[in-house]
C-alpha cells in the first residue's frame, strides 16, 4: 500500500512539474523575453504580428524545398541555395538587416501549409502554386506576389516512343503527393479521355527516383522542376521533356492568413526586388544609386519618403536586400540563368517592360 502510494506521489510530482513547465508561458504569451521556440509556436492572434516576433527572435524561419536544384536545394555541407532560398534571404535582410539570419526548414509537399498555419515557419518559399483553394480560408494561406511563372510538364524516356501526351494512354505516371501537379495530371488525362495510373510519393527525390528506376513511364511536375531534376537522373541524356504545358503554375511565397502586417512586409520585399530590377538597381551599384535623382529609386531605397516605416520595416530595407541578395534579375541569373546547368530562359518571368509578366505596383 505504502509503496503504491509513494509511486503515485512521485508520478504525480513528475506530471505536475511537466505541466507547470508547459503551462507557465500560457497565461502571458506576450511577455517580452519569451524563448524563441515558445514564440515560434505561439498563436499570432495572441502574440501580435509575426513581424514583431521575427524581430525579437533575431532570425527568420523559412519553409523551403531541399530537393530541387536551382530552387531549393541543400548541399553536402548543409548549405541551402536556390531561387526560393534567396527570397528567404531577401526577407531576412529586409526585416533583420542580415540575409543570413535565416533558419531553413524543409517543407514537404503535403505538410507545407500545416507548417505555416501552425506557426512552425514564418514564411513559405517552396515552389508553391497559388490557387483559389489554397488562398481561401479553407487552406488558409496568404499568397505573396508570384515570383516564378511556371507550367506543368511531362518527362519521358526518349526510347519510349512517346512524343506527346496523346501517346501516353494507359501510362503509369510518377507524381508527388499534395501538389497541384497531382490534380492537373488527373484533369488533363480526364479531359483527353485517356487512362493513367498515378504512383504518388511524398517527396521529389522519391518520385524522381522511382521514375529513374523504371517504375513509371512518365514523371510530371513543374517544367522548372523537371529541368532541375533532369540533372539528378542516372542518365540525363536518355530522357526528354515533352513540349506540352499542362497547366498554369504561378509559384509564389505564402504566409499565415490571419496576419496582414506580416503579409504586407513580405509582399513588398518581393515587389521591391522586381522594382529594383526595373529601376536598374543592382548589388554593385546600389551605393551609387543612393544619390540618384530618380524619385522612384529614392523612395525604393528609402532616401525619400517613409516607405519602410509604413510597413514596420527600416526605411532602407531595400538597400540591405539589394546589397546582400541582389535584385530579381540577379537572383534569377545566379540560380537559373545562362551560367547555371539549367539555363532557363526568362520567358514569362521577364519584366513587363520586356514582354514578361513581372510588374510591381508603385512604391509610393
Amino acid at each position, binding site marked *: *500500500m*505504502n509503496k503504491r*502510494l509513494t509511486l*503515485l*506521489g512521485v508520478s*504525480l510530482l513528475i*506530471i*505536475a512539474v511537466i*505541466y507547470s513547465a*508547459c*503551462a507557465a508561458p*500560457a497565461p502571458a504569451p506576450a511577455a517580452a523575453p519569451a524563448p524563441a521556440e515558445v514564440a515560434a509556436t505561439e*498563436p*499570432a*492572434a*495572441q502574440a501580435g504580428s509575426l513581424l514583431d516576433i521575427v524581430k525579437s527572435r533575431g532570425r527568420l524561419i523559412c519553409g523551403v524545398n531541399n530537393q530541387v536544384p536551382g530552387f531549393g536545394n541543400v548541399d553536402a555541407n548543409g548549405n541551402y541555395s536556390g531561387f526560393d532560398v534567396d527570397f528567404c534571404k531577401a526577407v531576412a535582410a529586409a526585416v533583420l538587416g542580415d540575409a543570413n539570419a535565416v533558419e531553413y526548414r524543409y517543407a514537404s*509537399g*503535403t*505538410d*507545407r*501549409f*500545416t507548417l505555416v*498555419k*501552425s*506557426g512552425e515557419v514564418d514564411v513559405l518559399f517552396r515552389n508553391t502554386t497559388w490557387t483559389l*483553394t489554397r488562398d481561401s*480560408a*479553407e*487552406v*488558409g494561406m496568404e499568397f505573396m506576389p508570384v515570383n516564378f511563372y511556371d507550367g506543368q510538364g511531362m518527362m519521358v524516356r526518349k526510347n519510349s516512343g512517346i512524343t506527346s501526351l496523346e501517346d501516353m*494512354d*494507359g*501510362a*503509369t505516371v510518377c507524381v508527388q*503527393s*499534395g501538389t497541384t501537379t*497531382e*490534380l492537373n*495530371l*488527373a*484533369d488533363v488525362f*480526364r479531359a483527353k*479521355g485517356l*487512362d*493513367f*495510373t*498515378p*504512383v*504518388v*510519393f*511524398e517527396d521529389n527525390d*522519391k518520385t524522381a527516383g*522511382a521514375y529513374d*528506376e*523504371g*517504375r513509371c*513511364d512518365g514523371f510530371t511536375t513543374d517544367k522548372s522542376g523537371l529541368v532541375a531534376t533532369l540533372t539528378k537522373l542516372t542518365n540525363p541524356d536518355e530522357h526528354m521533356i515533352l513540349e506540352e504545358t499542362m497547366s498554369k503554375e504561378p509559384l509564389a511565397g505564402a504566409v*499565415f*492568413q*490571419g496576419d496582414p502586417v506580416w503579409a504586407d512586409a513580405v509582399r513588398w520585399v518581393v515587389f521591391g526586388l522586381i522594382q529594383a530590377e526595373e529601376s536598374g538597381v543592382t548589388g554593385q551599384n546600389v551605393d551609387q544609386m543612393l544619390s540618384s535623382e530618380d524619385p522612384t529609386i529614392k523612395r525604393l531605397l528609402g532616401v525619400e519618403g517613409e516607405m519602410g516605416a509604413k510597413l514596420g520595416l527600416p526605411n532602407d530595407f531595400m538597400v540591405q536586400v539589394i546589397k546582400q541578395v541582389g535584385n530579381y534579375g540577379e537572383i534569377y541569373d545566379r540560380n537559373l540563368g545562362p551560367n547555371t546547368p539549367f539555363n532557363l530562359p526568362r520567358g514569362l518571368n521577364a519584366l513587363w517592360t520586356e514582354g514578361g509578366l513581372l510588374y510591381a505596383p508603385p512604391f509610393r
Partner: protein
Amino acid sequence: MASSTFPTTRPPFYRDTRVIAVILQLIFLIALLLTGWFLYSNMVARLAASNTAAGGALSWAFLNQTAGFGISEGPAFRPDESYGRAFLVGVANTLRVGVVGIVLATLLGLFAGIARVSTNWLLNRLAAVYVEIFRSTPLLVQLLFWYVGVIAALPSIQDAAELGNLGYLTNRGIHLTWVFITETGRLWLAWLLAGFVVGLGVSWLRRRHLERNGLPGSAALPGVLVFLALAILGYIVADRIASLPAATTYELRRGDRGTLFEDVNRNGVYEPGVDRALAYVPITLFDQQGQVVASGITESDGTFRFINLPAEAVRLEWETPAPLAVSEPQLQGFNFRGGLSLTPEFAALLIALVVYTGAFVAEIVRAGISAVNKGQWEASRALGLNTGQTLRLIVLPQALRVIIPPLTSQYLNLVKNSSLAIAVGYPDLFNVSRTIVNQTGAEVQVILMVMATYLSFSLITSLFMNWYNKRIALVER
C-alpha cells in the same frame, strides 16, 4: 490491555492513506483536465485566427467535395469522386494489407517458431538467423530494402521475366494469371455458402457421434466432402441457369474502350453508384464492316480497353460467362492488363510487414511451446504419439494460452505499422489522408478520422482476440 498503548484519536488527514489517495487522485484528474483544456483552447484560438471555417468550428463539408486526384490501386476510384470516398479507398487499402499481412505473418511465424524448437540443426539455425536479422533491424529500413533493393531491381516491363504460364515479374509489379468469380458466379457463391453451412453441420453431427461412442476417426472429413459435392453441383447449376441481367448494355469510347454494365435506371448512360458494372464477362468488338477487331474479358470494374486496334470498333457483343473465369496478364501498351496485379508498392509493404512481424510471432510461438511442461512431451511420446501429433494435439493447444495475448499486440502493431506505406507510395489510409489534408486544409478533422479508424481497427482486433483467448482458456479449464 493493548488499548492503552495505542492512541485513540484519528491521525491527521495528511497521514491517512485513504484521504491522501482521494486527494492525489483529484489533483491528478484536475491536472489532466487542465492540460486537455489548454490544448483544446490553443487549437480553437489558432483556428479562429486563420479564419478556417467560421470561428474555429470544424466543418465536415469537405467530405462531399470532388477530390480531383487519382489513387493508384484499391477499389476503383475516379478523380471526380469525393474526398469521403477517397478516404474509404484508403481504409480499404489498409484493411487489404492488414488482413493479408496478419494471415501470412501468423503462418510464417508459426512455421519459424516451431523450427526454432526443432531438433533439426539446419532448420533450427536458419530460423534463428531469420528471427535475429529481421527482429533487430528497423521496419522502415526493411521496407525500403524490399522496395528499392529487390523489386525495383526486377527486369523492366519490356523484358519481363516470365514465370511459365503463371505470369510475369517486372519492376512494375507481379502480374499473375488468376481465377476470378464472374457475374454468374454470384449464384455459385450462394451455393458455396450453403455448402459451408451444411458441411459444418455434418461435421458437428459426426463429431458428436464419434465422441458418444468413443470411436477414432476424423469428424472434419465428411463435412469437407459434403461441401465439395455441393460446390461442384452448384457450379454446374450456376453455369446452366445463370444469365446476365436483361438491362445489360455498354458504353464504347474512342472505338477501343468502355464499360459493360447493367443499366439499372435504363437511361443508357453508365453512372457509377447507380448502374452496376459487370466484371469478367467475355466480350467481342466488331467494326463497321462487322469484322471482329478484338476480344477479351472485362476487368473487375467492368471496363475493357484495347490498344492499337486495326480498326475502330462500333459494336460489342457479350457472352454469358461461366461462374469462374481465368484471366491472363497481357502486355498492352505500357502496362499489363488482366490477371491479378500486385503493385511493387503493395508487394513491398506486404513482404516487409509479414517478414518483420513474422519474426516476432516466431519468438512468441517459441516462448509458448517452451512454456509447456517437458513432462507433457514425454507423456505424449510414452502414449505412442509421434512428434507431429504431439505438437498438434498436446503442445500447441496448451501453448496457445501463452501465445494469444502477445500475438494480439503483434497484430495491432502490424496494422499500425502499415502506415509506413507512405514511404513507398502505397495509397493506404494514412497516405490518402495526408493528401486530403493538404488539399482541404482540414487537418484536425482528417486526423481525428484517421485516429478513430485505427482505433476501431485495433479495438475490433482486440475484442476478437480476447474472445478467442477466453474460448481456449475454457477448453484448458
